[in-house]
Protein backbone atom coordinates (compact mmCIF):
# COMPACT_ATOMS: atom_id res chain seq x y z
CA UNK A 1 0.00 0.00 0.00
CA UNK A 2 1.24 3.46 -0.84
CA UNK A 3 2.66 5.44 2.07
CA UNK A 4 0.29 8.26 1.26
CA UNK A 5 -2.69 5.94 1.78
CA UNK A 6 -1.59 4.58 5.11
CA UNK A 7 -4.00 4.98 7.95
CA UNK A 8 -3.04 5.01 11.61
CA UNK A 9 -4.99 3.68 14.54
CA UNK A 10 -5.68 6.40 17.12
CA UNK A 11 -3.40 4.56 19.55
CA UNK A 12 -0.46 4.52 17.14
CA UNK A 13 -1.11 8.18 16.40
CA UNK A 14 -0.92 9.08 20.06
CA UNK A 15 2.32 7.18 20.50
CA UNK A 16 3.93 8.75 17.44
CA UNK A 17 2.83 12.19 18.57
CA UNK A 18 4.68 11.94 21.88
CA UNK A 19 7.84 10.38 20.44
CA UNK A 20 9.62 13.60 19.45
CA UNK A 21 8.88 15.15 22.82
CA UNK A 22 10.22 12.10 24.60
CA UNK A 23 13.25 12.17 22.33
CA UNK A 24 13.83 15.83 23.14
CA UNK A 25 13.70 15.17 26.88
CA UNK A 26 15.99 12.17 26.58
CA UNK A 27 18.46 14.12 24.46
CA UNK A 28 18.45 16.85 27.06
CA UNK A 29 19.00 14.43 29.91
CA UNK A 30 21.81 12.70 28.07
CA UNK A 31 23.50 15.95 27.08
CA UNK A 32 23.14 17.25 30.59
CA UNK A 33 24.57 14.12 32.15
CA UNK A 34 27.53 14.15 29.76
CA UNK A 35 28.35 17.80 30.39
CA UNK A 36 27.92 17.46 34.14
CA UNK A 37 30.16 14.41 34.19
CA UNK A 38 32.87 16.53 32.63
CA UNK A 39 32.29 19.63 34.71
CA UNK A 40 29.94 19.32 37.67
CA UNK A 41 29.49 23.10 37.70
CA UNK A 42 28.42 23.29 34.09
CA UNK A 43 25.51 25.67 33.71
CA UNK A 44 24.48 25.13 30.13
CA UNK A 45 22.35 22.01 30.58
CA UNK A 46 21.49 21.82 34.27
CA UNK A 47 20.27 18.58 35.80
CA UNK A 48 16.57 18.13 36.41
CA UNK A 49 17.02 18.66 40.13
CA UNK A 50 18.72 21.98 39.46
CA UNK A 51 15.86 22.98 37.20
CA UNK A 52 13.37 21.97 39.88
CA UNK A 53 15.29 23.99 42.45
CA UNK A 54 15.25 27.02 40.22
CA UNK A 55 11.53 26.67 39.56
CA UNK A 56 10.89 26.30 43.26
CA UNK A 57 13.02 29.34 44.00
CA UNK A 58 11.43 31.54 41.35
CA UNK A 59 7.83 30.43 41.55
CA UNK A 60 7.17 29.13 45.03
CA UNK A 61 9.53 31.01 47.31
CA UNK A 62 8.96 34.64 48.11
CA UNK A 63 11.79 36.88 46.99
CA UNK A 64 13.52 37.99 50.20
CA UNK A 65 13.93 41.51 48.87
CA UNK A 66 10.43 42.30 47.79
CA UNK A 67 8.40 39.45 49.19
CA UNK A 68 7.09 38.81 45.69
CA UNK A 69 7.03 35.53 43.84
CA UNK A 70 9.25 36.58 40.95
CA UNK A 71 8.00 34.08 38.43
CA UNK A 72 4.43 35.20 38.86
CA UNK A 73 5.31 38.88 39.01
CA UNK A 74 7.23 38.47 35.77
CA UNK A 75 4.39 36.59 34.17
CA UNK A 76 1.83 39.18 35.18
CA UNK A 77 4.00 42.06 34.00
CA UNK A 78 4.65 40.44 30.63
CA UNK A 79 1.12 39.29 30.06
CA UNK A 80 -0.14 42.76 30.93
CA UNK A 81 2.13 44.32 28.32
CA UNK A 82 1.30 41.67 25.81
CA UNK A 83 -2.42 42.07 26.36
CA UNK A 84 -2.20 45.84 26.08
CA UNK A 85 0.00 45.70 22.97
CA UNK A 86 -2.00 43.05 21.21
CA UNK A 87 -5.28 44.60 22.28
CA UNK A 88 -4.26 47.94 20.87
CA UNK A 89 -2.91 46.38 17.71
CA UNK A 90 -6.14 44.45 17.28
CA UNK A 91 -8.19 47.58 17.70
CA UNK A 92 -6.05 49.46 15.21
CA UNK A 93 -6.17 46.57 12.80
CA UNK A 94 -9.92 46.46 13.05
CA UNK A 95 -10.52 50.17 12.62
CA UNK A 96 -7.80 50.98 10.11
CA UNK A 97 -8.04 47.64 8.34
CA UNK A 98 -11.78 47.95 7.84
CA UNK A 99 -11.56 51.59 6.82
CA UNK A 100 -8.74 50.94 4.36
CA UNK A 101 -10.45 47.85 3.01
CA UNK A 102 -13.81 49.56 2.57
CA UNK A 103 -13.14 53.14 1.54
CA UNK A 104 -11.36 53.75 -1.76
CA UNK A 105 -10.03 57.15 -0.66
CA UNK A 106 -8.46 55.84 2.52
CA UNK A 107 -7.15 52.87 0.64
CA UNK A 108 -5.40 55.06 -1.89
CA UNK A 109 -4.04 57.21 0.91
CA UNK A 110 -2.84 54.58 3.35
CA UNK A 111 -2.37 51.20 1.71
CA UNK A 112 1.08 51.88 0.20
CA UNK A 113 2.26 53.60 3.35
CA UNK A 114 1.18 50.72 5.55
CA UNK A 115 2.88 48.31 3.19
CA UNK A 116 6.06 50.35 3.55
CA UNK A 117 5.80 50.63 7.33
CA UNK A 118 5.29 46.90 7.69
CA UNK A 119 8.72 46.40 6.11
CA UNK A 120 10.59 48.60 8.60
CA UNK A 121 12.50 46.48 11.11
CA UNK A 122 11.12 47.74 14.42
CA UNK A 123 14.12 46.58 16.44
CA UNK A 124 16.37 48.97 14.55
CA UNK A 125 14.18 51.87 15.52
CA UNK A 126 14.14 51.03 19.23
CA UNK A 127 16.27 54.00 20.30
CA UNK A 128 13.97 56.50 18.62
CA UNK A 129 10.96 54.74 20.00
CA UNK A 130 12.21 54.84 23.54
CA UNK A 131 13.09 58.49 23.26
CA UNK A 132 9.74 59.45 21.82
CA UNK A 133 7.66 57.23 24.06
CA UNK A 134 9.65 57.33 27.25
CA UNK A 135 10.60 54.17 28.98
CA UNK A 136 7.59 53.17 30.94
CA UNK A 137 5.14 50.61 29.81
CA UNK A 138 4.20 52.84 26.88
CA UNK A 139 7.29 52.15 24.85
CA UNK A 140 7.12 48.40 25.37
CA UNK A 141 3.50 48.33 24.39
CA UNK A 142 4.24 50.60 21.46
CA UNK A 143 6.98 48.30 20.21
CA UNK A 144 4.54 45.41 20.19
CA UNK A 145 1.97 47.54 18.41
CA UNK A 146 4.44 48.81 15.82
CA UNK A 147 5.73 45.32 15.32
CA UNK A 148 2.44 43.57 14.75
CA UNK A 149 -0.19 46.15 13.83
CA UNK A 150 0.87 46.92 10.23
CA UNK A 151 0.76 43.27 9.30
CA UNK A 152 -2.61 42.82 10.98
CA UNK A 153 -3.97 45.91 9.28
CA UNK A 154 -2.89 44.60 5.88
CA UNK A 155 -4.36 41.22 6.66
CA UNK A 156 -7.71 42.69 7.71
CA UNK A 157 -7.88 45.11 4.80
CA UNK A 158 -7.20 42.23 2.44
CA UNK A 159 -9.95 40.20 4.08
CA UNK A 160 -12.36 43.09 3.59
CA UNK A 161 -11.33 43.35 -0.05
CA UNK A 162 -11.84 39.62 -0.45
CA UNK A 163 -15.50 39.91 0.49
CA UNK A 164 -17.44 39.41 -2.73
CA UNK A 165 -18.42 42.75 -4.23
CA UNK A 166 -21.85 41.19 -4.66
CA UNK A 167 -22.36 41.29 -0.90
CA UNK A 168 -21.70 45.00 -0.72
CA UNK A 169 -24.05 45.72 -3.61
CA UNK A 170 -26.64 43.45 -2.08
CA UNK A 171 -26.39 45.34 1.20
CA UNK A 172 -26.87 48.60 -0.69
CA UNK A 173 -30.02 47.25 -2.28
CA UNK A 174 -31.12 46.52 1.29
CA UNK A 175 -30.72 50.27 1.94
CA UNK A 176 -27.46 50.09 3.89
CA UNK A 177 -25.27 53.19 4.14
CA UNK A 178 -21.48 52.89 4.20
CA UNK A 179 -21.63 52.96 7.98
CA UNK A 180 -24.25 50.24 8.15
CA UNK A 181 -22.39 48.11 5.63
CA UNK A 182 -19.37 48.36 7.88
CA UNK A 183 -21.36 47.61 11.00
CA UNK A 184 -23.57 44.78 9.86
CA UNK A 185 -21.92 43.25 6.82
CA UNK A 186 -18.18 43.79 6.99
CA UNK A 187 -17.47 43.87 10.71
CA UNK A 188 -19.09 40.56 11.64
CA UNK A 189 -17.42 38.85 8.72
CA UNK A 190 -13.92 40.09 9.47
CA UNK A 191 -14.04 39.43 13.20
CA UNK A 192 -13.18 35.74 12.85
CA UNK A 193 -10.28 36.66 10.61
CA UNK A 194 -9.21 39.22 13.19
CA UNK A 195 -8.88 36.48 15.78
CA UNK A 196 -6.91 34.39 13.32
CA UNK A 197 -4.65 37.32 12.47
CA UNK A 198 -4.13 37.82 16.18
CA UNK A 199 -3.12 34.19 16.60
CA UNK A 200 -0.59 34.51 13.82
CA UNK A 201 0.97 37.50 15.56
CA UNK A 202 1.38 35.85 18.95
CA UNK A 203 4.88 34.66 18.15
CA UNK A 204 6.11 38.03 16.85
CA UNK A 205 4.43 39.80 19.76
CA UNK A 206 6.33 37.68 22.27
CA UNK A 207 9.49 38.43 20.32
CA UNK A 208 8.99 42.17 20.52
CA UNK A 209 7.99 41.92 24.15
CA UNK A 210 11.20 40.11 24.99
CA UNK A 211 13.25 42.59 22.99
CA UNK A 212 11.60 45.55 24.71
CA UNK A 213 11.96 44.04 28.15
CA UNK A 214 15.60 43.35 27.44
CA UNK A 215 16.22 47.07 27.17
CA UNK A 216 14.39 48.56 30.06
CA UNK A 217 12.21 46.94 32.64
CA UNK A 218 12.27 45.81 36.19
CA UNK A 219 10.11 42.76 35.77
CA UNK A 220 8.82 40.55 33.01
CA UNK A 221 9.66 37.23 31.46
CA UNK A 222 12.03 38.74 28.89
CA UNK A 223 13.62 40.94 31.52
CA UNK A 224 14.39 37.97 33.70
CA UNK A 225 15.82 35.94 30.86
CA UNK A 226 18.15 38.75 29.87
CA UNK A 227 19.09 39.46 33.45
CA UNK A 228 20.18 35.95 34.26
CA UNK A 229 21.71 35.45 30.84
CA UNK A 230 24.79 37.29 32.11
CA UNK A 231 25.31 34.41 34.50
CA UNK A 232 24.27 31.78 31.98
CA UNK A 233 21.64 30.65 34.45
CA UNK A 234 20.05 28.17 32.15
CA UNK A 235 18.27 26.66 35.15
CA UNK A 236 16.10 29.76 35.13
CA UNK A 237 16.10 30.39 31.37
CA UNK A 238 14.82 26.93 30.38
CA UNK A 239 11.75 27.02 32.62
CA UNK A 240 11.01 30.54 31.48
CA UNK A 241 11.30 29.59 27.83
CA UNK A 242 9.10 26.55 28.39
CA UNK A 243 6.60 28.74 30.18
CA UNK A 244 6.53 31.30 27.37
CA UNK A 245 6.04 28.50 24.86
CA UNK A 246 3.21 27.10 26.90
CA UNK A 247 1.56 30.50 27.28
CA UNK A 248 1.81 31.13 23.55
CA UNK A 249 0.40 27.70 22.75
CA UNK A 250 -2.46 28.21 25.20
CA UNK A 251 -3.28 31.63 23.80
CA UNK A 252 -3.18 30.17 20.30
CA UNK A 253 -5.55 27.39 21.25
CA UNK A 254 -7.80 29.68 23.29
CA UNK A 255 -8.19 32.19 20.49
CA UNK A 256 -9.10 29.44 18.07
CA UNK A 257 -11.71 28.08 20.47
CA UNK A 258 -13.02 31.57 21.02
CA UNK A 259 -13.44 32.09 17.30
CA UNK A 260 -15.36 28.86 16.90
CA UNK A 261 -17.52 29.69 19.83
CA UNK A 262 -18.27 33.27 18.90
CA UNK A 263 -18.58 32.74 15.17
CA UNK A 264 -19.94 29.26 14.60
CA UNK A 265 -20.79 30.09 11.02
CA UNK A 266 -17.11 30.70 10.21
CA UNK A 267 -16.50 27.00 10.74
CA UNK A 268 -19.06 25.83 8.21
CA UNK A 269 -17.70 24.52 4.97
CA UNK A 270 -17.81 27.09 2.21
CA UNK A 271 -18.65 29.95 4.55
CA UNK A 272 -15.34 31.56 3.69
Amino acid at each position, binding site marked *: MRLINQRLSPGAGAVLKTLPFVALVLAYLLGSALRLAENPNDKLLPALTTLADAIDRMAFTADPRSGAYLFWTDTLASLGRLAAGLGLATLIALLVGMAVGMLPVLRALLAPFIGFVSMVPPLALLPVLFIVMGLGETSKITLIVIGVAPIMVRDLAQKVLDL*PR*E*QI*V*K*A*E*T*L*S*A*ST*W*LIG*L*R*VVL*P*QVLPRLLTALRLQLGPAFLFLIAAEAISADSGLGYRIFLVRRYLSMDVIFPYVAWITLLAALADYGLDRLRRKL*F*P*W*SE*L*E*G*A*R
Partner: protein
Amino acid sequence: MTALSIENVWKEYGDQIVLENLTLEIAPRSFVALVGPSGCGKTTLLRMLLGQEQPTRGRILLDGTPLPPEPGPDRGVVYQRYSVFPHLTVLGNVMLGPELQANRLTGRSFGAARRALADQAREMIAAVGLAGAEAKYPAQLSGGMQQRLALAQALMMKPRVLLLDEPFGALDPGIRTEIHHLMKRLWNELPMTVVMVTHDLREAFTLGTRIVALDRTRSRPEELLRYGATVTKDIAIWPPRVAGRATLYDTEHPQAQDDLTAFASPAGTTRQTPSLI
Protein backbone atom coordinates in the same frame (compact mmCIF):
# COMPACT_ATOMS: atom_id res chain seq x y z
CA MET B 1 -45.83 51.46 -12.19
CA THR B 2 -42.13 51.01 -12.78
CA ALA B 3 -41.25 51.13 -16.41
CA LEU B 4 -37.58 50.97 -17.29
CA SER B 5 -36.24 52.86 -20.30
CA ILE B 6 -32.76 52.16 -21.58
CA GLU B 7 -31.96 54.85 -24.11
CA ASN B 8 -29.02 54.61 -26.50
CA VAL B 9 -26.74 53.18 -23.87
CA TRP B 10 -23.08 52.50 -24.62
CA LYS B 11 -20.71 50.89 -22.17
CA GLU B 12 -16.96 50.86 -22.66
CA TYR B 13 -14.21 49.53 -20.46
CA GLY B 14 -11.10 51.39 -21.54
CA ASP B 15 -10.72 50.53 -25.23
CA GLN B 16 -13.21 47.71 -25.21
CA ILE B 17 -16.76 48.50 -26.25
CA VAL B 18 -19.02 46.08 -24.42
CA LEU B 19 -22.49 47.39 -25.19
CA GLU B 20 -23.28 49.40 -28.26
CA ASN B 21 -26.20 51.73 -28.62
CA LEU B 22 -28.64 49.66 -26.63
CA THR B 23 -32.25 50.82 -26.52
CA LEU B 24 -34.94 48.93 -24.67
CA GLU B 25 -38.30 49.85 -23.22
CA ILE B 26 -39.41 47.58 -20.42
CA ALA B 27 -43.09 47.79 -19.55
CA PRO B 28 -44.31 47.70 -15.94
CA ARG B 29 -44.74 44.20 -14.52
CA SER B 30 -42.76 42.60 -17.33
CA PHE B 31 -40.57 39.58 -16.73
CA VAL B 32 -37.69 40.09 -19.14
CA ALA B 33 -35.39 37.14 -19.72
CA LEU B 34 -32.00 38.31 -20.95
CA VAL B 35 -30.04 35.73 -22.91
CA GLY B 36 -26.88 35.80 -24.97
CA PRO B 37 -23.45 34.22 -25.28
CA SER B 38 -20.96 34.41 -22.46
CA GLY B 39 -19.13 37.72 -22.24
CA CYS B 40 -21.64 39.64 -24.36
CA GLY B 41 -22.45 42.05 -21.54
CA LYS B 42 -25.58 40.71 -19.84
CA THR B 43 -24.14 41.16 -16.39
CA THR B 44 -22.83 44.57 -17.38
CA LEU B 45 -26.33 45.65 -18.41
CA LEU B 46 -27.74 44.36 -15.14
CA ARG B 47 -25.07 46.22 -13.22
CA MET B 48 -26.06 49.42 -14.94
CA LEU B 49 -29.73 48.83 -14.13
CA LEU B 50 -28.63 48.30 -10.55
CA GLY B 51 -26.67 51.55 -10.51
CA GLN B 52 -23.43 49.76 -9.75
CA GLU B 53 -21.99 50.91 -13.09
CA GLN B 54 -22.72 54.02 -15.12
CA PRO B 55 -23.35 53.99 -18.88
CA THR B 56 -20.54 55.56 -20.87
CA ARG B 57 -23.13 57.22 -23.07
CA GLY B 58 -26.93 57.22 -23.06
CA ARG B 59 -29.19 57.06 -20.05
CA ILE B 60 -31.45 54.77 -18.10
CA LEU B 61 -34.78 55.99 -16.72
CA LEU B 62 -36.92 54.43 -14.02
CA ASP B 63 -40.50 55.67 -14.50
CA GLY B 64 -39.12 58.62 -16.39
CA THR B 65 -36.55 59.64 -13.76
CA PRO B 66 -32.84 59.03 -14.32
CA LEU B 67 -31.51 56.19 -12.20
CA PRO B 68 -29.61 57.21 -9.06
CA PRO B 69 -25.90 56.49 -9.55
CA GLU B 70 -25.72 53.76 -6.94
CA PRO B 71 -27.75 50.76 -5.83
CA GLY B 72 -30.67 51.40 -3.54
CA PRO B 73 -33.65 49.63 -2.00
CA ASP B 74 -35.92 50.23 -5.00
CA ARG B 75 -33.97 47.70 -7.05
CA GLY B 76 -33.38 44.26 -5.58
CA VAL B 77 -30.84 41.75 -6.86
CA VAL B 78 -30.14 38.04 -6.68
CA TYR B 79 -26.87 36.69 -8.03
CA GLN B 80 -25.87 33.17 -8.87
CA ARG B 81 -23.73 33.15 -5.72
CA TYR B 82 -22.83 35.42 -2.80
CA SER B 83 -26.32 36.83 -2.52
CA VAL B 84 -26.82 35.99 1.13
CA PHE B 85 -24.71 36.82 4.15
CA PRO B 86 -22.89 33.80 5.53
CA HIS B 87 -22.69 35.22 9.05
CA LEU B 88 -26.45 35.64 9.47
CA THR B 89 -29.03 32.94 10.00
CA VAL B 90 -31.90 32.57 7.58
CA LEU B 91 -34.05 34.74 9.79
CA GLY B 92 -31.24 37.27 10.22
CA ASN B 93 -30.71 37.46 6.47
CA VAL B 94 -34.35 38.08 5.75
CA MET B 95 -34.72 40.65 8.53
CA LEU B 96 -31.59 42.52 7.54
CA GLY B 97 -33.06 44.86 4.93
CA PRO B 98 -35.93 46.27 7.01
CA GLU B 99 -33.66 46.43 10.04
CA LEU B 100 -31.16 48.55 8.15
CA GLN B 101 -33.88 50.72 6.73
CA ALA B 102 -35.46 51.41 10.10
CA ASN B 103 -32.30 51.89 12.17
CA ARG B 104 -29.83 54.12 10.41
CA LEU B 105 -27.40 54.16 13.33
CA THR B 106 -27.30 50.69 14.81
CA GLY B 107 -28.74 48.74 11.91
CA ARG B 108 -30.64 46.62 14.43
CA SER B 109 -34.20 46.51 15.68
CA PHE B 110 -35.08 45.78 19.25
CA GLY B 111 -38.11 44.95 21.31
CA ALA B 112 -41.54 45.09 19.79
CA ALA B 113 -40.29 46.41 16.44
CA ARG B 114 -37.99 43.44 16.23
CA ARG B 115 -40.70 40.96 17.06
CA ALA B 116 -43.04 42.45 14.50
CA LEU B 117 -40.33 42.34 11.89
CA ALA B 118 -39.43 38.77 12.78
CA ASP B 119 -43.03 37.72 12.25
CA GLN B 120 -43.08 39.41 8.88
CA ALA B 121 -39.79 37.74 7.99
CA ARG B 122 -41.10 34.34 9.04
CA GLU B 123 -44.04 34.76 6.72
CA MET B 124 -41.71 35.56 3.86
CA ILE B 125 -39.52 32.61 4.76
CA ALA B 126 -42.55 30.37 4.70
CA ALA B 127 -43.62 31.87 1.39
CA VAL B 128 -40.38 30.77 -0.24
CA GLY B 129 -40.68 27.36 1.39
CA LEU B 130 -37.96 27.68 3.98
CA ALA B 131 -40.14 27.37 7.08
CA GLY B 132 -38.25 25.43 9.73
CA ALA B 133 -34.82 26.57 8.56
CA GLU B 134 -34.99 29.97 10.27
CA ALA B 135 -32.08 29.31 12.61
CA LYS B 136 -29.77 27.80 10.01
CA TYR B 137 -26.77 29.51 8.46
CA PRO B 138 -26.58 29.69 4.66
CA ALA B 139 -23.68 27.23 4.56
CA GLN B 140 -26.05 24.70 6.11
CA LEU B 141 -28.53 25.07 3.26
CA SER B 142 -28.46 23.46 -0.14
CA GLY B 143 -27.87 25.65 -3.19
CA GLY B 144 -31.57 25.79 -4.00
CA MET B 145 -32.45 26.79 -0.47
CA GLN B 146 -29.81 29.52 -0.54
CA GLN B 147 -31.34 31.01 -3.68
CA ARG B 148 -34.81 30.93 -2.11
CA LEU B 149 -33.32 32.72 0.83
CA ALA B 150 -31.76 35.32 -1.45
CA LEU B 151 -35.15 35.87 -3.06
CA ALA B 152 -36.86 36.23 0.29
CA GLN B 153 -34.21 38.68 1.42
CA ALA B 154 -34.58 40.81 -1.69
CA LEU B 155 -38.38 40.71 -1.63
CA MET B 156 -38.57 42.01 1.94
CA MET B 157 -37.59 45.40 0.54
CA LYS B 158 -40.57 45.34 -1.85
CA PRO B 159 -38.32 46.42 -4.72
CA ARG B 160 -39.92 48.00 -7.75
CA VAL B 161 -37.43 46.19 -9.96
CA LEU B 162 -35.96 42.79 -9.25
CA LEU B 163 -32.73 41.97 -11.08
CA LEU B 164 -31.63 38.36 -11.31
CA ASP B 165 -28.20 37.34 -12.64
CA GLU B 166 -28.34 33.64 -13.49
CA PRO B 167 -29.96 33.02 -10.12
CA PHE B 168 -30.64 29.35 -10.77
CA GLY B 169 -27.63 28.50 -12.92
CA ALA B 170 -25.90 26.42 -10.28
CA LEU B 171 -28.92 24.39 -9.23
CA ASP B 172 -29.80 20.80 -10.03
CA PRO B 173 -32.56 20.45 -12.61
CA GLY B 174 -35.13 19.06 -10.17
CA ILE B 175 -34.56 21.85 -7.69
CA ARG B 176 -34.58 24.35 -10.51
CA THR B 177 -38.03 23.32 -11.60
CA GLU B 178 -39.35 23.82 -8.11
CA ILE B 179 -37.83 27.24 -7.75
CA HIS B 180 -39.21 28.26 -11.15
CA HIS B 181 -42.68 27.68 -9.81
CA LEU B 182 -41.87 29.74 -6.75
CA MET B 183 -40.49 32.54 -8.91
CA LYS B 184 -43.53 32.56 -11.08
CA ARG B 185 -45.83 32.77 -8.09
CA LEU B 186 -43.88 35.60 -6.52
CA TRP B 187 -43.85 37.57 -9.73
CA ASN B 188 -47.60 37.09 -10.03
CA GLU B 189 -48.25 38.22 -6.51
CA LEU B 190 -45.86 41.12 -6.00
CA PRO B 191 -45.98 44.39 -7.93
CA MET B 192 -42.54 44.28 -9.49
CA THR B 193 -40.78 44.27 -12.80
CA VAL B 194 -38.23 41.48 -13.22
CA VAL B 195 -35.12 41.34 -15.40
CA MET B 196 -33.42 37.98 -15.34
CA VAL B 197 -30.17 36.95 -17.02
CA THR B 198 -30.02 33.28 -17.89
CA HIS B 199 -28.03 30.89 -20.01
CA ASP B 200 -30.88 28.48 -20.10
CA LEU B 201 -33.34 29.06 -22.89
CA ARG B 202 -35.86 26.72 -21.33
CA GLU B 203 -35.80 28.80 -18.20
CA ALA B 204 -36.26 31.93 -20.24
CA PHE B 205 -39.33 30.50 -21.92
CA THR B 206 -40.70 29.07 -18.70
CA LEU B 207 -40.60 32.32 -16.79
CA GLY B 208 -40.37 35.29 -19.12
CA THR B 209 -43.01 37.48 -20.64
CA ARG B 210 -40.41 38.61 -23.09
CA ILE B 211 -37.06 37.30 -24.17
CA VAL B 212 -34.28 39.71 -25.12
CA ALA B 213 -31.14 38.36 -26.72
CA LEU B 214 -27.92 40.36 -26.67
CA ASP B 215 -25.12 39.62 -29.08
CA ARG B 216 -22.36 41.15 -31.08
CA THR B 217 -23.35 41.84 -34.65
CA ARG B 218 -19.78 41.46 -35.84
CA SER B 219 -17.64 38.70 -34.53
CA ARG B 220 -14.41 38.60 -36.45
CA PRO B 221 -11.58 38.54 -33.86
CA GLU B 222 -10.16 41.89 -34.93
CA GLU B 223 -13.59 43.46 -34.53
CA LEU B 224 -14.26 42.12 -31.04
CA LEU B 225 -12.82 45.10 -29.25
CA ARG B 226 -14.33 47.78 -31.44
CA TYR B 227 -17.91 46.61 -31.65
CA GLY B 228 -20.13 45.94 -28.66
CA ALA B 229 -23.20 43.79 -28.25
CA THR B 230 -26.70 45.04 -28.76
CA VAL B 231 -30.21 43.61 -28.87
CA THR B 232 -30.36 40.98 -31.62
CA LYS B 233 -33.68 39.30 -30.83
CA ASP B 234 -36.66 40.53 -28.89
CA ILE B 235 -39.43 37.96 -28.54
CA ALA B 236 -42.71 38.30 -26.69
CA ILE B 237 -43.96 35.01 -25.27
CA TRP B 238 -47.15 33.73 -26.86
CA PRO B 239 -49.78 33.27 -25.54
CA PRO B 240 -49.00 36.42 -23.54
CA ARG B 241 -48.28 35.87 -19.90
CA VAL B 242 -49.64 38.64 -17.67
CA ALA B 243 -48.67 39.14 -14.05
CA GLY B 244 -51.40 38.03 -11.67
CA ARG B 245 -53.32 36.09 -14.30
CA ALA B 246 -52.85 32.38 -14.96
CA THR B 247 -52.10 31.43 -18.55
CA LEU B 248 -53.12 28.32 -20.34
CA TYR B 249 -49.88 26.57 -19.56
CA ASP B 250 -49.17 27.68 -16.04
CA THR B 251 -50.62 25.18 -13.62
CA GLU B 252 -51.80 26.35 -10.25
CA HIS B 253 -50.09 23.83 -7.94
CA PRO B 254 -46.95 23.06 -9.78
CA GLN B 255 -45.16 21.29 -6.91
CA ALA B 256 -47.35 18.26 -7.45
CA GLN B 257 -46.06 17.82 -10.98
CA ASP B 258 -43.66 15.03 -11.73
CA ASP B 259 -40.14 16.22 -12.41
CA LEU B 260 -39.75 14.35 -15.65
CA THR B 261 -43.00 15.67 -17.03
CA ALA B 262 -41.94 19.14 -16.07
CA PHE B 263 -38.84 18.61 -18.10
CA ALA B 264 -40.65 17.23 -21.06
CA SER B 265 -43.17 20.04 -21.56
CA PRO B 266 -41.86 23.58 -21.56
CA ALA B 267 -44.44 25.85 -20.02
CA GLY B 268 -44.40 28.51 -22.71
CA THR B 269 -44.09 28.12 -26.46
CA THR B 270 -42.95 30.74 -28.91
CA ARG B 271 -44.21 32.30 -32.07
CA GLN B 272 -40.79 32.04 -33.57
CA THR B 273 -38.41 29.10 -33.50
CA PRO B 274 -35.49 30.23 -31.47
CA SER B 275 -31.91 29.56 -32.52
CA LEU B 276 -30.25 32.04 -30.30
CA ILE B 277 -27.51 30.25 -28.49
